[in-house]
């Protein structure tokens, strides 16, 4: 299961992930992190059974946590199933099934490569 963390200005310098790992003993994997001087956006892969605990631990520290259940939002009226999103996705979220483009949940790290790569402008990130 993937969790997206929104880290606000006040706590971005605090070792949040390390402290949550120590507290929950969850084996998390940092899949994407963009952090600047004032805020941060981090995508974590967390074992499913540890998810509620990890989520609560971050929320206790003032981090907004969004579980990434849907990979990306697709406008079905716009999608023509061309496949422009398939090979550019770093986590292989998309695949063809009888020439229909399918998206697997739980793989997307919200990088947005498919959003700009889609010629039909059919894709949107969950949180944007």
């Amino acid at each position, binding site marked *: 299961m993937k969790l997206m963390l929104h880290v606000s200005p006040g706590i971005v310098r605090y070792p949040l992930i390390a402290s949550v790992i120590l507290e929950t003993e969850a084996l998390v994997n940092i899949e994407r992190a963009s952090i600047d001087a004032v805020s941060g956006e981090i995508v974590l892969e967390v074992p499913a059974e540890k998810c509620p605990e990890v989520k609560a631990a971050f929320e206790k520290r003032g981090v907004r946590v969004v579980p990434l259940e849907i990979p990306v939002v697709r406008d079905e009226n*716009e999608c*023509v*199933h*061309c*496949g*422009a*999103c*398939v*090979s*550019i996705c770093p986590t*292989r979220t998309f*695949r*063809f099934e009888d*020439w*229909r483009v399918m998206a697997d949940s739980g793989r997307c790290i919200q990088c947005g*490569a498919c959003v*700009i*790569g889609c*010629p*039909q*402008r059919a894709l949107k990130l969950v949180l944007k």
Partner: protein
Amino acid sequence: MPTFGRPVQEKSLSEINERIRDGSARVVTAEEMPDIVDELGPAEAVREVDVVTTGTFGAMCSSGVFLNLGHSDPPIKIGRAFLNRVEAYGGIAAVDLFLGATQPSEDRGIEYGGAHVMEDLVSGKQIEVDAFGVGTDCYPQTELETCLRLDDFNQAVMVNPRNAYQRYNAATNTSDRTMHTYMGTLLPRVGNIHYSGAGVLSPLSNDPNFDYIGVGTRIFLAGAQGYIMGTGTQHNPQSGFSTLMVTGDMKKMSSRFLRAATFHKYGPSLYLGIGIPIPILNEKLARSTAVRDRDITVPIVDYGIPRRDRPSLKAVSYEDLKSGIIELSGKEVATSSLSSFLMAREVAAMLKQQVEKGEFAITCPVEPLSRLGSSRPMKQTKESPNVGDVMSCDVVTVREDIGVDEAARLIVSGSFDHLPVISKDGRLIGIITTWDISKAVAGGKPSCIGEIMTRRVYSIRADEPIEIAARTFDVHSISAMPVVDRDNKVIGMITSNHLSRLLARRR
């Protein structure tokens, strides 16, 4: 033509149309045909099958529409016109316009363009028209604004100079940056392969010798019945890249098969669904419509090289491309398409249904398509200088073990703000700038330049046009780069000063 042993199986077009009219025609798609021919053989397939329907659905940039607005009162002779702020060509009669698919809008840039205006019109939306005229005795009005829907135009005739490519080069990128092209996002260092075209369903791949397809052939064009006007631009059947020029009534088109698109950092384009029914008149057509994905090959072309003659890395078939993975220089590379095979299938299936129902009669072409075409490079009469013509040759290079203070002295005594750093055998491995040195001095501890140099260094060859240098400067926000030879040895430097001097001299 006499053949010995058995008669050649043939059938006339009127015979086939007769069957279409009485609903007894046997119609299959080009995806179903190969198995039928394999099983029955071509002669029996001619007896069995009347029509094979083909289909393709992909980006067709070379598309547009002629629009007639009707005359205003007082009349205007339109010179420039904007439809939803997208410029349409007005250099024809007073209220005729040509709107091209790739024209970007004045206000929204490439996110909205000519293709989007077409999709809006076909979807029944109203568009804003701003027209400007010169003012003449017969056309006194000089400016007008109006709002129109597709029904309000007298005519909306799609005329596409180049559609339905027989097959198309696949694309990859060996450079070390992501490229945004009309072949989609191409990841660096051969990160992916993109392809386009329907392969087994491709109309022209099912009749590459034009045994049926010709001038006047009735086709499925974005849901309407359109016609082939002739060969398309860059038609090149000799090398297997034939194209079509097609026309059709936009008022009868469907927004399901006409979709506006935008390629990131490239521009607008139009996705169109095109299908051609091929009557199985003889064994030759039975054989050519039995083509499979594995029979149609294309080169994988390197779009990382920003030149006309891009190197091709490998020849692959549509079967390989559709498998999702291709091995390229020892690495498994993911492939995906930009055209939609799902929609191409829908086109072929819909056309099959229309023929079966007797709604789509097969026309007899007026003339076959030309088997000779031309896709030559442009004749360029004004020579543009190459990097080698403007670069400086008196370049100072350094090794990475020299001290920062020595590098500083060299920069002060030389004529550049940049020092290329080379390896023992003279190959370019990095670059050091005055900024790197200032930063190092401000930080106060580095000993040799190897620690502070930029290793991701951009370079160029002397035989490349200066336009390529200018684009590299612009894309990476740099102002100079080393010029290297085939062995990556530094032979000169080119800077933005060289380019601006050239511009100043021209004016």
